[in-house]
């Protein structure tokens, strides 16, 4: 039995199809990321899996429990960190955590023990007795995630867990999530490809409500990605040379004064020699490993972030 399974999961808002027939299978203990730009349908998918939104077509099950027919069985198994930080502002950390823990049926003792552990990991212990309305965005974000974990759920949904955090705070959360790997089934959504790359066992690339690519980070980069790229830093590049390059290679891009050449097979020496022969000065040149961003651009023809 899969921890999370969706069957042609679809959600329409009037004429807009936010999620369009998604089929996912997430195994127990797996960390699966849905990577996609804003508006791709990630949050809508999570909301259907949490029984907050009814699918217009299809369905999903969590550890075998159907989200439409048995929502309360599902709710007992899951922990959710919503995309928007939602805390009770006039409660302190302990009280916020106890609320979720106890509504999930944990004893006071158990709640206390788990809260202590989470507050320490999340670096919130020092301020744990302050009302959270006085917290910074990053602190609230960390508590938001801790609240998803306090009930020790079997399946964890993290909707953009590091949205808007500074790199340092982001890294701390990544490390904590990485520690949970294997112990919990985690479905994470993100539009940061580094995040998906760093954390995931498998990644689903989602765009306009559809999963357009699926696999491990490595698989996505090698199997699905046919293009290779090379970056060259040059001087006195003429329009003539560019036109010539365009006729030979699939795509050219100018990034910060540097030239990026895409093609199925790229020969480093061939390109450098050609540029020299045309009198172009080459300062530097390097073949590039494709990134998930490249994969995304390749598949959807657009960028992850605008």
């Amino acid at each position, binding site marked *: 039995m899969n921890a999370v399974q969706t069957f042609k999961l679809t959600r329409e808002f009037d004429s807009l199809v936010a999620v369009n027939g998604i089929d996912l299978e997430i195994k127990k203990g797996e960390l699966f990321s849905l990577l996609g730009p804003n508006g791709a349908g990630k949050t809508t998918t999570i909301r259907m899996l*949490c*029984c*907050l*939104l*009814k699918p217009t077509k299809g369905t999903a099950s969590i550890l075998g429990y159907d989200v439409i027919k048995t*929502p*309360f069985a599902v*709710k*007992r198994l*899951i922990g*959710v960190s*919503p995309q*928007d930080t*939602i805390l*009770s*502002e*006039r*409660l302190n950390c302990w*009280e916020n955590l*106890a*609320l*979720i823990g*106890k*509504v*999930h*049926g944990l004893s006071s003792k158990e709640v206390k023990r788990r809260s202590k552990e989470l507050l320490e990991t999340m670096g919130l212990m020092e301020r744990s007795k302050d*009302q959270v309305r006085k917290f910074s965005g990053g602190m609230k974000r960390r508590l938001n995630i801790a609240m998803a974990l306090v*009930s020790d759920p079997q399946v964890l949904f993290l909707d953009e867990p590091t949205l808007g955090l500074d790199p340092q705070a982001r890294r701390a959360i990544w490390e904590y999530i990485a520690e949970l790997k294997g112990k919990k089934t985690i479905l994470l959504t993100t539009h940061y490809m580094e995040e998906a790359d760093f954390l995931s066992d498998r990644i689903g690339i989602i765009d306009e409500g559809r999963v357009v690519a699926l696999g491990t980070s490595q698989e996505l980069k090698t199997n699905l990605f046919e293009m290779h790229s090379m970056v060259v830093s040059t001087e006195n590049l003429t329009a003539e040379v560019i036109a010539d390059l365009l006729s030979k290679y699939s795509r050219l891009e100018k990034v910060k004064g540097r030239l990026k050449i895409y093609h199925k097979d790229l020969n480093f020496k061939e390109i450098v020699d050609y540029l020299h022969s045309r009198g172009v000065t080459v300062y530097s040149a390097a073949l590039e490993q494709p990134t998930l961003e490249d994969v995304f651009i390749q598949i959807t023809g657009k960028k992850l972030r605008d």
Partner: protein
Amino acid sequence: MKFWEIGKRNLKEIYRNPVLLGFLLGMPLAFMLVFCAAAGGGQASPIALGIVDEDRSQDSSAFIQNLGGIEAIELNEPIYSEKSQAQEDLEDGRISLYLLIPSGFEEATRAQQAINLELFYKEADPMIGLQLKLIIEAVGSEFLGVAPPLNVELKGTESKIKNLAVNFYFPGIAVFGLMILISTAAEIIAGDREKGFLARMFTTPARPWDFILAYSLPFIPVLIVSTLIYLGVGMALGLTVVGNLGYAFLIFFLIGLCSIGIGMIVGSLVKSESQAGVSWIFIVPMAMISGAWFSVERMPSAIKSVAGVLPFIHAIDASRAVLNGSSFSAIILDLYWLAGWTVVLFVTGIILFRRTMVS
């Protein structure tokens, strides 16, 4: 006990918010102070009452003497023996109203039978009749409640009601004050829905009734304290409690629960705190036909029957009766009615709330 956990959170969110708490508890206080200043400040001048004594018995004159002992009433002398004379004086404005004691009054009191006393007043001035009706009823029930021989026991009996106007208007003011809980309760729910807190909690195993109970819970202390403020400040500033204060409290408590229940329903229907303002679409018309502001007696029969179905008029009439001295048995039906409404409103709230848990 999921409701208790969410309820505790709601309590803390409200009680740690000084502005909100100030409003919840300051409102009844301000309400009562203004009301008592307006209604109870000056000594109300007595109402000139004519009496037609068709019975001319020992009992009827004892009863008249009793009425005469009340500060609020100024008996018109002499007592009429013919109704036509009194009617003439009423039309000419020499008296504001007159009471007809029919022949057979003594017989009926001794046999402990029902007695109909008729109070005639000028159509143009219904309020005065209503006020006096209550007084006469109170005096009458005191009078008739005493076992014969009447003449000995009744000497010097006075109405305990110090200020008629305060006793008459107080229940309506207090019930209207409690009706405002409709909007406050609705706003708290709608605010939490708008902020996403409810959606967050909908991913936990909490059930619809857990939420309805959890959101009613913080209003119970508010309700108790407001009722105590209404009664306490009212009594300090002119309200006379002749009957059982506990019953009056119970009635106010039940109508407060009804208001919270309506608040739960409105809170389940609206999406944002600003939309919760629609509660006033319920509050104002319901208050208008509840007798809180004007008498319902003379409204069209259709409106009167709607008013009679709603709980508010029952709360106002019953609490007024109890404060003026009626016994528990006189208000028991009103209490059942209020309790029934409380149950119906909360069940409706739960059903409506359940529908909002998935969209």
